[in-house]
């Protein structure tokens, strides 16, 4: 059992051994519980039960010594091939068991004995020791009873007799009880007891003196001997405490004392996990939940266990200690894989789910939930397994990786992954994994990281480390190989460059990162060749994307998808999860059937059991092929018929031909799912004392909780701090209604549609042109660095007068959409909340903010919007001519404010937002480079931002300096876009305009030359930051004289009034080159 890859007959043999050992234990248990025989007989029976459990029973003999008695198997003889295990009762050696082989047997783990046999003997002895302890105590109480019977009505209290008995039979227990008694006295306010406790010797008032005179000082008496000390306590007890009370307390203390070994092992930092788990088992076995421990003892044990298994985080412990029971840990250790000497923990993800589950179990409102709440069967690998794995394979040098240059990390990472994948797991872990696989059977599983760093509040590591889905099909050997492969890959992700960079940024590099692993059963059903949940998703107790003013933040948000929840977790570019606000389930994002269908999930993530792969498939295909077999399909899809979306009737739905869309209408209307998830979020938020987000999945019947963590861990939705006093001249506007959290980048341009001027436009055509102009600006201004502000409802489809008529494609590059509601004749118009393209906004992280400038307490800087210069005419002269310019203003913030940028701070907790002019994050130190426009601190990216655009700019400049302009007929080179505007990210390309003379052959050669460089720079970029460009990193636009003259396409950028392409210095032509060109 300690080595893998054994021939089958060997395995069978070993299994037989284990059976024998188990039988041995059962027999002993049976004998000890047989009350028909005497104590002595029982011991004899135990001895006789031992040899059959050993590998060679015929030559095996045993002997048991207890106190002075000896019990032996008939064939026992003193020989050298022996195992000895002492019997310890209450820390006192009271005897021993010896097992011998009468003949010399082949060498095994310990002499001729197997390791398992050593353990077996230990277990037998432990069990026996418990039994003896129990018998002793029973004797004590038995005696007590006898004495009591004899001396009823005697002046000596019963408890005194019991105490005396105890003193004789078990002095150390007696002393512990005595101490408790002393504490009890102190607690009752007995002064002398307090003194005794503090000094261990006191002056005691004379018992006889009490009756004399209350005002006279008491006679003092000095205690200095041990017996006297005991007697003093006993007499104090006699004096101040009620007899029955003491007796009851004593009984409880004696029972409590049994839990002592567990407590002691928990208190000591040096105890390993296996010792603890052994102690839990023992404790549980001895008295499962029957022991009446005091609340404080229980709490203490829970806290110790939480600390050892999960985290030192005080917040967590203080909440969890009220919700977890010792039984929970007992159940947990059965599904834990750890090394014998482990001190590891289970990690962040595990602790979140563990606590959440127990909170929900105790939540009264969820007791009869329509979808019973469960956690999928989960196994845990403790966090230090990864270290053992590394040591076992001599991979220690990888631990230093995190201190290396990120380039180097990136370069070696693919190699690291392969090394990890090709490494062996230590046999103990393999053994555990094998048991685990048997437990799971052939159901698909997911291997998830559960990192200790996830405990660090604020560090959202979720996306950095991997989660891998396994189909878990095939032979055991194949499954095990896939599993270890997956675990190795997740382990390797600890050393992935992104994670290391992220940690470096947060100063977490020195944190000793151990990674726990959670292996979870995938929730779902087999549907045809696929395995998937009926539905899954994520839910937030705070809603940061509200589509109606009637939805409050605490109404929460659910993102629901068919299939695996992976598609709900990430914002999708090309698909839409169903959004529900559980507090307001009836307010839908999309009202018209057409909209509902358009914004419905079209794809699903599934596990393909035939290819053993995780796949993304079309929902329509699944419904068409397997609709009949999809559990609870009637709650998932709706039938689009006659302009209405209806829950399908299973009686007449035609999965092949009907127009079916995933809407979850049935789930909303016909089940209590939404109400239930609202309860869940409420309960968790209340107990965690912070907004939470959860991941969940359902097989159609049950609700499985997959993850739970504070919502603040998702950094992108944390509120900004709103400064208290800001100078008016630097404030553009404030808002105090319907504010959602969300990080905004630094804003360089504002597109402002003046509500008054817009209202004055008299003809429809001009109104439509305003929308067109906005669309044009959307493609000209730097992406996500401008905001759109305008009256009423953006994208209004009814009356263009009420809001600028735009489609999503006209606004998709903005960072924020602001709707201004100005009072009109005493009433404030309703705003759209972006409903016309709400889901597009959500998936693109475009923020929405309504402004009510006429509200009291809000501020709107009319002066700024009128005073500043307008860049509109320069940008769109043709629209200026048409009279659109009056209504639309483009403000170049930097130009108007001496280099400041606009910062929009949002805080949903305070329901406040403010737009402030502020200096950019950092000033450029490189005078050679264009005016730097800094980017906002978007998690994990700002550190490099500087680097990224500088490198790109520099490379472009080098190319210009090196290219043979004559040979390729190049007249000029220009850089534009993100690299020029200093906003390039690791995945930004380099946009170049190359002005050529029109010779086709030269141009062809130039294209080749640039293409080569493009691929080469892409490779270098990959090594720098991990972003890969398959087609190369350069985006070259070739323009001719004609294009430049006509300002065609990209040639327009050359010398453009705003954001023009910047010329790059070409290599000087040979004819006039006295000195080298400088880049």
């Amino acid at each position, binding site marked *: 059992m300690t080595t893998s890859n054994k021939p089958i007959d060997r395995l069978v043999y070993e299994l037989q051994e284990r059976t024998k050992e188990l039988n041995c234990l059962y027999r002993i248990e049976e004998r000890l519980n047989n009350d028909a025989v005497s104590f002595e007989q029982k011991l004899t029976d135990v001895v006789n039960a031992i040899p059959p459990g050993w590998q060679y029973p015929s030559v095996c003999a045993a002997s048991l010594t207890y106190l002075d008695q000896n019990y032996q198997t008939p064939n026992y003889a003193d020989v050298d091939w022996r195992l000895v295990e002492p019997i310890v009762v209450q820390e006192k050696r009271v005897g021993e068991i010896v097992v011998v082989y009468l003949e010399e047997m082949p060498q095994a783990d310990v002499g001729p004995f197997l390791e398992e046999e050593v353990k077996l003997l230990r277990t037998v002895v432990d069990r026996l020791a418990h039994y003896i302890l129990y018998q002793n105590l029973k004797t004590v109480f038995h005696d007590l009873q006898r004495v009591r019977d004899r001396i009823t009505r005697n002046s000596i209290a019963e408890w005194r007799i019991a105490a005396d008995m105890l003193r004789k039979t078990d002095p150390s227990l007696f002393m512990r009880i005595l101490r408790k008694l002393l504490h009890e006295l102190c607690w009752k306010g007995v002064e002398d007891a307090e003194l005794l406790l503090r000094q261990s010797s006191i002056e005691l008032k004379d018992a006889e003196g009490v009756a004399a005179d209350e005002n006279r000082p008491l006679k003092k008496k000095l205690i200095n001997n041990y017996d006297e000390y005991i007697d003093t306590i006993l007499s104090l007890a006699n004096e101040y405490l009620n007899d029955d009370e003491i007796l009851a307390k004593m009984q409880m203390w004696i029972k409590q004392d049994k839990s002592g070994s567990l407590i002691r092992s928990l208190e000591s930092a040096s105890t390993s996990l296996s010792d603890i788990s052994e102690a839990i088992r023992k404790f549980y076995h001895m008295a499962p939940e029957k022991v009446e421990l005091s609340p404080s003892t229980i709490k203490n044990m829970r806290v110790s266990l939480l600390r050892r298994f999960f985290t030192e985080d005080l917040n967590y412990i203080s909440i969890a200690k009220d919700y977890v029971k010792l039984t929970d840990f007992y159940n947990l250790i059965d599904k834990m894989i750890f090394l014998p000497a482990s001190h590891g923990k289970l990690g962040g993800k595990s602790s979140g789910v563990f606590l959440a589950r127990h909170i929900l179990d105790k939540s009264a409102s969820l007791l009869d939930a329509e979808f019973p709440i469960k956690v999928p069967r989960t196994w845990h690998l403790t966090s230090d397994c990864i270290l053992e794995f590394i040591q076992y394979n001599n991979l220690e040098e990888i631990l230093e990786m995190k201190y290396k240059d990120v380039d180097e990390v990136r370069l070696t990472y693919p190699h690291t992954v392969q090394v990890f994948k090709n490494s062996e797991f230590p046999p103990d872990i393999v053994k555990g994994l094998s048991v685990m696989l048997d437990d799971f059977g052939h159901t698909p599983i997911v291997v998830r990281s559960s990192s200790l760093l996830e405990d660090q509040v604020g560090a959202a590591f979720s996306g950095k480390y991997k989660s891998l889905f396994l189909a878990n099909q095939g032979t055991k050997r194949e499954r095990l190989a896939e599993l270890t492969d997956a675990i190795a890959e997740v382990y390797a992700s600890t050393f992935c460059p992104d994670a290391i960079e992220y940690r470096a940024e947060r100063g977490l590099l020195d944190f000793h990162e151990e990674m726990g692993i959670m292996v979870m059963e995938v929730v779902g059903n087999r549907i045809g060749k696929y395995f998937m949940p009926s539905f899954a998703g994520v839910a937030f107790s705070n809603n940061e994307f509200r*589509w*109606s*003013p*009637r939805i409050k933040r605490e109404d929460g948000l659910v993102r629901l998808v068919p299939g695996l929840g992976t598609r709900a977790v990430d914002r999708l*570019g*090309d698909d839409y999860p169903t959004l529900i606000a559980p507090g307001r389930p*009836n*307010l*839908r*994002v999309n*009202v*018209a*059937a057409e909209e509902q*269908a*358009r914004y419905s999930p*079209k794809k699903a993530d599934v596990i393909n059991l035939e290819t053993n792969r995780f796949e993304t498939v079309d929902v329509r295909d699944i419904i068409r092929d397997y609709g009949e077999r999809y559990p609870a399909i009637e709650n998932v899809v709706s039938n*689009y*018929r*006659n*302009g*209405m979306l209806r829950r399908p009737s299973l009686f007449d739905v035609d999965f092949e031909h009907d*127009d079916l869309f995933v809407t979850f209408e049935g789930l909303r209307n016909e089940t209590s799912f939404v109400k239930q998830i609202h309860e869940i979020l409420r309960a968790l938020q209340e107990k965690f004392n912070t907004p939470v987000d959860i991941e969940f999945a359902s097989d159609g019947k049950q609700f499985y909780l997959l993850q739970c963590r504070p919502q603040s861990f998702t950094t992108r939705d944390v509120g900004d701090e709103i400064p208290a006093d800001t100078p008016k001249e630097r404030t553009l506007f404030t808002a105090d209604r319907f504010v959602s959290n969300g990080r905004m980048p630094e804003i360089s341009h504002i597109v402002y549609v003046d509500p008054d001027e817009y*209202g*004055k*436009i*008299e*003809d*429809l*055509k001009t*109104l*439509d042109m305003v929308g067109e102009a906005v669309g044009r600006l959307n493609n000209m201004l730097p992406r996500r660095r401008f905001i759109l502000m305008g009256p*009423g*409802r953006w994208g*209004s*489809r*009814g*009356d*263009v*007068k*009420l*809001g600028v008529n735009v*489609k*999503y*494609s006209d606004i*998709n590059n903005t960072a924020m959409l602001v709707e201004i509601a100005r009072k*009109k004749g005493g009433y404030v*118009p*309703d705003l*759209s*909340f972006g*409903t016309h393209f709400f889901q597009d906004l959500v998936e693109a992280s475009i923020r929405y903010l309504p402004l009510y400038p006429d509200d009291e307490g809000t501020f709107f800087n009319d002066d700024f919007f009128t005073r500043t210069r307008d860049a509109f005419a320069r940008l769109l002269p043709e629209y200026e001519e048409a009279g659109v310019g009056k209504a639309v203003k483009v403000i170049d913030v930097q130009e108007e404010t001496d280099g400041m940028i606009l910062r929009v701070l949002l805080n949903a907790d305070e329901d406040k937002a403010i737009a402030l002019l502020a200096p950019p994050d950092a000033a450029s130190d490189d005078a050679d480079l264009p005016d730097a426009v800094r980017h906002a601190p978007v998690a994990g990216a700002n550190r490099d931002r500087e680097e990224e655009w500088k490198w790109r700019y520099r490379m472009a400049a080098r190319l210009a300096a090196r290219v043979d302009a004559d040979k390729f007929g190049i007249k000029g080179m220009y850089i534009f876009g993100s690299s020029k505007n200093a906003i390039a990210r690791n995945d930004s390309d380099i946009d170049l305009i190359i002005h050529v003379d029109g010779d086709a052959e030269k141009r062809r050669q130039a294209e080749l030359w640039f293409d080569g460089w493009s691929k080469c720079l892409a490779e270098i970029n990959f090594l720098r930051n991990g972003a890969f460009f398959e087609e190369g990193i350069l985006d070259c636009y070739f323009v001719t004289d004609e294009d430049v003259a006509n300002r065609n396409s990209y040639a327009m950028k050359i010398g453009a009034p705003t954001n023009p392409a910047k010329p790059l210095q070409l290599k000087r032509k040979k004819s006039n080159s006295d000195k080298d060109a400088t880049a």
Partner: protein
Amino acid sequence: MATSGFNAFEMAQAQFDKVADILQLEESVRDILRQPMREYHFNIPVHMDDGKVKVFRGFRVQHNDARGPGKGGIRFHPQETVDTVRALAMWMTWKCSVVNIPLGGSKGGVICDPHNLSMREQELLCRGWVRQLAKDVGPLNDVPAPDVMTSPQHMLWMLDEFEAISGAKYPGFITGKPVGMGGSLGRTEATGYGVVYTIREALKLMNVKPEETFASVQGFGNVSQYAIQLYQRLGGKVVCVSSWDQQDQKSYAFRRDVGVDLEELQRITDRFGGVDKEKAQSLGYEVLDGDAWIEQDVDILIPAALENQINKTTVEKVSDRVKIVAEGANGPTTPEADAILEERGVYVIPDFLANAGGVTCSYFEQVQCNMNYFWEKEETLTRLDTKMTSAFHEVHELAKKRDLFMRDAAYVIAVKRVAQACKDRAWA
């Protein structure tokens, strides 16, 4: 209501005044047609989900019912204004008149944002609307229909309330109902087919055989798909179709010189008219920029997607070969482009007429409901053909006789009929 700025009703009145001048209408006729005959403004209290009562403002404007019961949609819009509703009601009068169906023009609305209302609240709103108006609407005096943000579901709620109040079944009270609940077959095809009926007639007049023509279509939604279907049945060949790509947020044109295969293309199209680029390419379609549909060397252009598509700039790209522009969409041609097309002798079938198949079919729905006998799809479509064809010829005749551009002729004929009805009734 704002006093300055764009006013839809004033615009509609100005347009009417122009036609009235052409027709040299008497003052009294102008007076009765410049203003709606009746308007209802009323409150609708609704018990909201949270137990509170919220009062909504509802309207119904009956512009003219000289030719028959009023017909027009009900809009749910948060910033509805009565002027918008008035303009649209007037528009409905002309629309019914141009295809010569015996209905007048109405429009209604409620100031509300359905995005802020639960389905239950919307139902109460619909029923409340009907309760306020039950005695002033009905199959014999004013027939509502779905419009902005109202759906067949809303129509059914309203119908149910109306029937509960009336104590009898009146399926003809409202149109836009689902098939089986009083809806008419052929409604999905109606608009697209209607466009092609008018194209067919125009080609006849030009003595051109449909099977010798080529067409290019903008948009691949419901209207386009059925227009292409019928046009291909007539033997014509569509060489280019454009469609909106939701993911790329731009449109693409799909061209194949041997002609597009409608069914093949439908198979790779989502139900919103988005064609899968890659699959189209593999089927031999050229994927071009969305604007490419307009520059194709074809005989017929069918803009069936958005407004203002043929404008000052794009009109230059229209091939000399183009003989007919059939406006499947509303307002696809700007006035400047209109003038240029006129100059070049292109035959424009105005939206007003070309896409009247929809309203005609609504009329059929009402007719069938009133007699409680429902036609087969073929019968509906045959009757549609008859209506559209005769409407087309009447407009064409007038245009020829008075030397008007088709667009103006359609307007003139519509107003003329209503004016005549008013005079006949001695209203003016």
